[in-house]
């Protein structure tokens, strides 16, 4: 819990207050039509981006197959939920089952049992993704590095997509979904995000975390100092795929998606997010995720926005990417973390001014 001690009190309190405000927004957002979806996506994209950031930012290895692991999380969650659904329909009768699970915006709310089911499903899906991630990491990380690792992970993720595409029960052409049966709430996703942030901070503060950072800064020096480089890499990769699995599983309760949507484009999207936020900066990833989600789901659908933006997101992304890389290649936050200091500075300056004014009098 090193991070906890390192954080200054003011920042800690502000963060807690911020989370509380978000919680309140999440709870009351269900009254709106668009807000829950946007919040859900923000939280889920943040989780998935954080997962990628562990490998790319903290470990310094370059992975282009993130979408594949999110796909595994998504598919496992859908299949598990379908099985749970079948089981309950059989034993309890359909009507009762629907009462427990269906979450309807108008009037209804997610039943407490629904929360339990979602959390269980997500955990199992994440574990399965982690196991697959461990195997992939074991095979690929020991032998390859740099661009080659990136390409191999991309290839592996495309194999996952191809397999899911070929079996109708795993997705098929347009994908499988459960969102008509059960869908999660922003509150739940926020809870997952906070839990994962705490988990990551704890993990990165531990011995493994420091090993990971040592590997990033210098592989050979780290090895010379007795850091088990390969083992560390595999652990980081497995941890990352565990989180990616959580992201994918949560996504399954928010929106239906076809397997092909998890291919190259999604992997690149998350790469864009973490680079935009700053490699190695956890809060940077979250900020970038917020920006991307707001751009896609809020900005583009506004009636006052020219259709050009909605129809050609690729041009906009491309221009933003190139400009950021050319003029601020470290991203929004660089390697720093977001703090509330600017917030207090705003008021501090004011106070100073007041004091001087008063002094003048």
């Amino acid at each position: 819990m090193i991070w906890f001690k390192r954080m200054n009190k003011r920042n800690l309190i502000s963060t807690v207050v911020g989370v509380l405000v978000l919680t309140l927004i999440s709870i009351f957002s269900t009254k709106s039509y668009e807000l829950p979806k946007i919040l859900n996506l923000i939280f889920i994209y943040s989780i998935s981006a954080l997962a990628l950031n562990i490998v790319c930012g903290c470990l310094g290895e370059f992975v282009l197959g993130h979408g594949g692991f999110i796909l595994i999380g998504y598919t496992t969650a859908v299949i598990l939920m379908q099985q749970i659904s079948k089981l309950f329909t059989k034993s309890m009768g359909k009507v009762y089952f629907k009462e427990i699970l269906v979450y309807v915006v108008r009037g209804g709310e997610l039943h407490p049992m629904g929360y339990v089911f979602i959390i269980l499903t997500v955990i199992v899906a994440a574990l399965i993704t982690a196991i697959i991630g461990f195997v992939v990491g074991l095979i690929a990380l020991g032998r390859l590095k740099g661009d080659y690792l990136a390409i191999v992970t991309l290839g592996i993720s495309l194999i996952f997509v191809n397999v899911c595409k070929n079996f109708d029960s795993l997705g098929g052409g347009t994908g499988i979904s459960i969102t008509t049966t059960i869908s999660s709430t922003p509150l739940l996703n926020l809870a997952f995000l906070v839990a994962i942030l705490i988990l990551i901070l704890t993990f990165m503060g531990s011995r493994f975390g420091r090993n990971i950072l040592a590997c990033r800064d210098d592989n050979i020096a780290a090895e010379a100092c007795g850091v088990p480089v390969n083992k560390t890499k595999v652990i980081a990769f497995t941890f990352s795929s565990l989180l990616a699995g959580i992201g994918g599983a949560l996504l399954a309760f928010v929106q239906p998606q076809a397997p092909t949507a998890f291919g190259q484009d999604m992997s690149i999207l998350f790469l864009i997010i973490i680079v935009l936020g700053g490699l190695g900066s956890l809060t940077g990833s979250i900020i970038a995720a917020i920006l991307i989600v707001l751009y896609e789901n809020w900005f583009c659908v506004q009636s006052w926005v020219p259709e050009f933006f909605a129809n050609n997101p690729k041009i906009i992304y491309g221009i933003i990417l190139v400009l950021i890389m050319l003029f601020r290649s470290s991203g929004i936050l660089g390697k720093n973390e977001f703090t509330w200091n600017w917030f207090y500075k705003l008021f501090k300056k004011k106070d100073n001014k007041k004091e001087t004014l008063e002094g003048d009098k």
Partner: protein
Amino acid sequence: MKKLFSLLVVLLLVCSVVGCKEKEAETIKLGSSGPLSGSVSIYGLAVKEGVELAVEEINAAGGVDVDGKMMKLELVDFVNDEADAKKAAAALTSLISKDVDVVVGAVTSGATEGLIAEAVKHGVPVITPTGTADKLTVGDNGDERDVRYNVFRACFYDSYQGKFMGQYAADQGVKKAYVLYNNDEDYSKGLKDAFVETATANNVNVVTAAYSKQDKDFNAFWVPILEGGYDCVYVPDYYENVYNILKTGYAKGYEGVCYGGDGWDGVIKQVKEGEDASFLENCFYTNHYFGESESPAVKTFVEKYQAKYGSIPVSFAALGYDAVYIAKQAIEACDSLEYDAVVEALTTGTFSGLVTSSTPFTFNNGNPEKAAVVITFKDGKEVEAE
């Protein structure tokens, strides 16, 4: 203080997204979604034209009679979803925030599935003009009708036309059939499964082969067909690929027949000026209606459409047109704009006078009970087959 104030403004802005729905019963608001750009844009544009024509026509005739009050129809938005599920889902939320009373959309099956995932939460009546996948109205395993209670379609569904074509092939005396389907489209897979099931049951020998969205060159795919001597190839896909496949196949010397589904509508427009279209003459496909048929409903629709847009409407335009009329009849039947009342009226009502169905029909699990027509080509034009 200024900074605090600006913060408050930002908070207010955030809260303003959390708007409440207030119904102003001035007009009946229709919302729609479909691909207006991208590879299947021809469908979205056709549906849009059909919907706009119907709205114009109904308004010119006075509007919709809701409990004795004549109300005008208003198409508040036709969102471009580029046939993408994610965008269609976003389209629905944006339509809901514009207080739509009925959603006419989406156009392609994949996008409609995305739209429905959101729509069931709001309960808004959804009439998809052209979403043909079976699962849209009843779910993946066919047992979700009580969840998707507000989803209806104006067209027949995939397994119906697949089975229809399978039966048709057997009736035509086909012995060895080959199915070339698109692995990336559930539309294609759905038709394939239904065709294979019916054809096999009728003692037709069927072999299937898959291609994916990245395949544009079909030369190699025709090799096993020509080697195996098949007398029928079933190609359930959308028109761009269909044109490619048929052209390649007949150029390579295939002499049998080709069958297809309603995704073929528009394939004739792919044939370029001065190009020999005779390769299409051995091809047959199922469609929702035939634009040059003699029935009076079709004739008046085609005339009006031609007067407005100057071309013969494809079936997608007719279905878009019909979807609006179905909505109108449902609203008039229940004299209300409440979501549940309209859904109830759609579930129980009988609908008549439509372009794509010569007989009145009711909805069974959200699917209309109507027949398909088989269309073939002659001299570069579409004609109805016997």
